[in-house]
């Protein structure tokens, strides 16, 4: 499987990368904003994406829609501090498989990943 981690925070990208460190992922890439994320997505067509919402240049919801138009079978997990129900519902309605609210624990992240790839 191929994994793309998208967040404007370096420490969050590194934290997710450590949590998902597994031989199951044969290629892992990261991006710090929505535009860069789409470039990476088109280039290596990942199977799994973790995606922040509040980011420079292009927000996570618009990025999510564009990614799914390119590869509808990609599984996308939103990882965001935006804790309101309306945002979670919008993301899930538009095709996200999971919505994880920051701050997260490694256990929450791992469980969400396992549910996504089950």
């Amino acid at each position, binding site marked *: 499987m191929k994994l793309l981690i998208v967040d404007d925070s370096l420490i969050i990208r590194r934290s997710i990368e450590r949590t998902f460190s597994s031989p199951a992922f044969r290629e892992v890439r990261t991006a710090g904003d929505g535009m860069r994320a789409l470039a990476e997505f088109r280039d290596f067509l990942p199977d799994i994406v973790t995606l922040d919402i*509040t*980011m*420079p240049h292009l927000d996570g919801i618009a990025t999510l829609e564009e990614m799914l138009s390119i590869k509808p079978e990609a599984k996308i997990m939103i990882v965001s501090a935006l804790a*309101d129900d309306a945002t979670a519902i919008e993301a899930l309605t538009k095709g996200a498989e999971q919505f994880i609210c*920051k701050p997260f624990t490694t256990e929450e992240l791992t469980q969400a990943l396992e549910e996504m790839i089950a």
Partner: protein
Amino acid sequence: MTTGDSSTLHEEMLAVFVQSIMKYFDHMAGIPAETGTPYLLNGEAEMLDITAVIGITGDLKGCVFYTAPIPLLDDLLRHIGEYNPTDELRCDMGGEVANTFTGNARRKLGPGFMISVPVVFLGQPTKLVWPKETTRFAIPIMWQQKRSMLIVCLAEASADHFV
């Protein structure tokens, strides 16, 4: 959230931020924080080593500052597995804390409470321009015997702001 009466607005809004602060430290590090009584900030605020600013638009307008000392940010970095802190990582941590406090506040304030990406600065600003027509409140935070502060400068969206 009730609007209209400004003192009720401030009281409810501050309670929302206090909840976000408590949840953050407890959930992320498993060590609860203590918040002091929020107070009205007239004049300048003391900025600590690293300060992150989040702009607010939508139903409310203004900004939220989180200011923290380096030792506190280093503790938080260790909790997420970063054992070799640098100023870049500390600034990122400060921005992420501010982003999480304000983003989590949407649980009560709703999607009309729109937040920007954080802007982070290291050290003391030469000049800080506060949004005008906003009321500024400081929420003192103690965690692991280290003091940081959240400063909430908000007004209802109809007010003009920024000088």
